[in-house]
């Protein structure tokens, strides 16, 4: 059995989850606490990939990342890197596609931290950074884990966007879901079944953990 697609998927999941942790935190904070009315417009834009067909997202990303697109041209001229059909391209696509999952999880977690704890920290002489790491983060574990698990799981199952932006280059952009599709196309149902089963077995503990955390949270708030 060819394990290479699993390795590419795993790398994609880790890169997307790691990068989105950094990108989504400030966004989630902004969406959770900003009083400005127009924030909802930006938030809706960020959530769009959840409801858009992956091909729509893939099409626009292709326009942006291709050598003639603004981002693709910048990368080509500045770093000499051709983005489309490369691993960085599927990481960018994965980030855009999974951003709403991470943002939603983090925002839910942030909103669950009582404001009074932040105020208590301020009256105890602590600045925002220390309050964030020592009070906010430990009290939003549920939202944090939920955002990470959903993002990682979603990245593992990424198909349409990856196919459009990365194609199917073995060891570079060929992720498990694409490998399954190709095995089915070539009527190799046995390998397709094996790949699919492994994905199910990987996804189940993640969903189990999420539900466990949700039940725990519900019990605490009762």
């Amino acid at each position, binding site marked *: 059995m060819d394990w290479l697609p699993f390795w590419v998927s795993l790398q994609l999941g880790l890169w997307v989850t790691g990068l989105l942790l950094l990108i989504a935190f400030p966004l989630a904070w902004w969406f959770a606490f900003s009083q400005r009315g127009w924030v909802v417009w930006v938030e809706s834009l960020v959530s769009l990939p959840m409801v858009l067909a992956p091909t729509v997202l893939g099409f626009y990303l292709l326009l942006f990342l291709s050598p003639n697109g603004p981002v693709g041209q910048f990368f080509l001229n500045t770093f000499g890197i051709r983005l489309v059909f490369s691993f960085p391209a599927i990481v960018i696509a994965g980030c855009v596609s999974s951003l709403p999952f991470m943002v939603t999880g983090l925002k839910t977690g942030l909103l669950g931290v009582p404001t009074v*704890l932040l105020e*208590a920290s301020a*009256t*105890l*002489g602590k600045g925002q950074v220390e309050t964030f790491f020592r009070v906010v983060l430990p*009290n939003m574990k549920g939202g944090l884990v939920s955002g990470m698990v959903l993002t990682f799981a979603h990245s593992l199952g990424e198909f349409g966007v990856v196919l459009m932006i990365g194609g199917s280059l073995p060891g570079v952009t060929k992720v498990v879901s694409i490998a399954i599709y190709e095995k089915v196309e070539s009527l190799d149902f046995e390998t397709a079944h094996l790949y699919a089963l492994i994905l199910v077995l990987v996804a189940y503990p993640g969903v189990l953990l999420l539900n466990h955390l949700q039940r725990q949270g519900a019990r605490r708030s009762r």
Partner: protein
Amino acid sequence: MIHFYIQKSFRAGAKTFSLDVEYALVAGAVLGIRGPSGSGKTSLLRCLAGLERPDGGFVRDDKDFWFDGRRNLFVPARKRNVGLVFQDYALFPHMTVLGNLLYACNDRPKAWDFLDLVKLTDQAHHFPRELSGGEKQRTALARALVREPKLLLMDEPLSALDEELRDSLGEEILRVQKETGVTTVVVSHSRHEIDVLATEVMELADGRLDPNKHLF
């Protein structure tokens, strides 16, 4: 001496409400402010703590200004060295009693001294969820005091407790306040609570402090 003059407009339901209060509090005194719900007691405490910015006036500790409306000076809560005991305690749920104190002041022997002061050494390694209401209140008090604040603020410190506990804890708070000598402002809707804790009593009515109303 803590001297404050606070002007603040805020919304209470559908109507707009104005706070216009001045008081000079000598060092070590306990000012009790009584008033009904929605009279602006908590807003007043929040302005003193630096969690809210008044519209005008000043708050100063001797010559040290924490807020001065004329000079547009506002020292935020984290830089005021004011201890605030929140109505619902606001203990950090992921930290033990000792952890809560160490968060406030990273000095282990001192934290133990303050736990001893509020008689909580046996509960030092308990989490807030494992504490009774009175123990939570004493933890919140010790946490506010361990930084040796210039001003201690207490928002309805006994109201969440049952009647039996209220009197004993009231005496306990009084003892701790006397031992530390910290200048204190207590607000409550309960006359009994204010009488137990305060050395100077004022009534907050129509957004103003009225010294006469407490005479009964």
